[in-house]
């Protein structure tokens, strides 16, 4: 049973998760340094690759940089750790306690994740001026911002469902560290945010189009950078919604089975 009935305790859980991220402040300050560095180096590499040309295959260098910058920033929001939370609870046996609580297990995990995301959101928002200052990001215009926001939200849901599915594997495998880490590592690449899909070889691009990851990364960034506009906007939204339906059903089925599979470790 999917328990997404509203529950007031969710807010408490979300708040605790958000606060736990502020413990290591040094880490956060370092985030600014690290982002500045990443943006700077990324630009250097692509400018060198463009080698003085203004545009390649119809993609202007400016568009390319904006795409990569927004992809990097939104990547911090879409860096979803729910698979890790689920695995941790299952592996340690804490899942037993979670299941006794008067709200669904997946609801609890989702609430924690959303809490983390809100904390990350304030963090990402604080990084935007830096990106604008470095000239990597174009100030948003409202006609792009609106579809971008919607697409980003859908991307978040796609990501949440994908990683929930990965996390649920731990009910069968217990130890999914390696698989999860591998997917997590590959995900920026699979999402087409490291090298945009338009610069990928045809075969690879086709494969990636059939995976959910690009719906959780590439599509919103492509909208923001202005590569998709007007009527063509229908397509990315259709793809994202289709993934939400498919993955939502998959989570439902898998969770139904996982509940019968629970092994509670130790006593």
């Amino acid at each position: 049973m999917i328990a997404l009935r509203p529950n007031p305790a969710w807010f408490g859980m979300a708040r605790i998760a958000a606060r736990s991220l502020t413990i290591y402040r040094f880490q956060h300050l370092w985030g600014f340094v690290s982002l500045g560095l990443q943006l700077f180096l990324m630009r250097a590499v692509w400018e060198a690759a463009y080698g003085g040309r203004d545009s390649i295959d119809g993609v202007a260098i400016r568009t390319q940089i904006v795409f990569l910058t927004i992809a990097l920033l939104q990547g911090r929001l879409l860096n979803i750790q729910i698979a890790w939370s689920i695995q941790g609870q299952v592996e340690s046996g804490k899942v037993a306690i979670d299941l006794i609580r008067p709200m669904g297990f997946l609801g609890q995990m989702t609430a924690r994740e959303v809490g983390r995301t809100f904390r990350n959101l304030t963090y990402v928002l604080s990084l935007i001026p830096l990106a604008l200052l470095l000239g990597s990001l174009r100030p948003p215009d409202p006609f792009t911002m609106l579809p971008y926001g919607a697409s980003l939200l859908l991307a978040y849901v796609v990501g949440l469902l994908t990683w929930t599915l990965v996390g649920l594997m731990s009910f069968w495998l217990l130890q999914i560290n390696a698989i999860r880490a591998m997917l997590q590592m590959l995900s920026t690449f699979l999402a087409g945010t490291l090298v945009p899909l338009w610069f990928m070889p045809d075969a690879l691009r086709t494969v990636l189009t059939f995976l959910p990851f690009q719906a959780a990364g590439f599509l919103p960034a492509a909208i923001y950078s202005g590569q998709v506009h007007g009527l063509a906007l229908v397509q990315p939204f259709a793809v994202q919604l289709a993934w939400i339906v498919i993955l939502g059903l998959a989570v439902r089925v898998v969770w139904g089975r996982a509940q019968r599979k629970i092994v509670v470790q130790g006593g």
Partner: protein
Amino acid sequence: MATLVTCWALVRASVRGSMQYRANFIAEVLFGVIYNSLGFVFILLVLGQFTSIDGWTLGEITLLYGIRLCGHGLWALCFSSSMMLDYYVQEGEWDRFLVRPMPAFVLMMVSYFRVAVFGDVLAGVVVLAAGIHQAGIVWTPARVLFLGATILGSAGLDAAFAIGPGALGFRFLNTEGVRGTIDYLTSQFAAYPLTILGRPVRYLLTFVIPLAFVAWIPGAVLLGKEEALPVPAWLAWGSPLVGVGLFLAALWFFRRESRHYQSAGS
């Protein structure tokens, strides 16, 4: 001698420990291969479209990447447990190393063996072989020796970049951010000719954070491209020594910082 025997026994035990879970072992090795190849795939994709970066061909960049990966693999084989330092300090586990009759640093080194390291080494050897094959180096005895020394130096730099900032963990408890950035820098950018960067940053990455010595400068020496470097030829040929020197400096810094350890008290 007895110390060495003990160390060897400890290393064997930790390797055996990590081999207990077969499936996870294979997955972790695969993880190592993929993690390290990802940056290279990026280069393949970009150069597939654009043929060269700042006058360096794909083959030449592959050589640079191979040097950096082999150095990294060698480092990881010996020193990867230094990544656990945050955990040891946070949990007070460092106590256990302090009460034993061997230097704590050595005990830390043999405490844990990350199996993914085999993947790192594998990826390194393959990419380096491909690079050597493709780059068309004119081999002289000096260059053969230099390649060996370069990999050692590159490993020394990688170790220094991990151990030095990692030692800050004794004071700050969490160094993941700093280490993550440096790892990002070395894994993503050490293989590029740094001439793609503006002069101030190029100097920064040559003389302050000497990323340039990991692969670009020694690679240029192997390919006979010294004239484009921002350093004189003697320094370029001496680049393996930069790695060794910095490694020793990092060890000294580690010892100094370790005095700031306050046990976790439990």
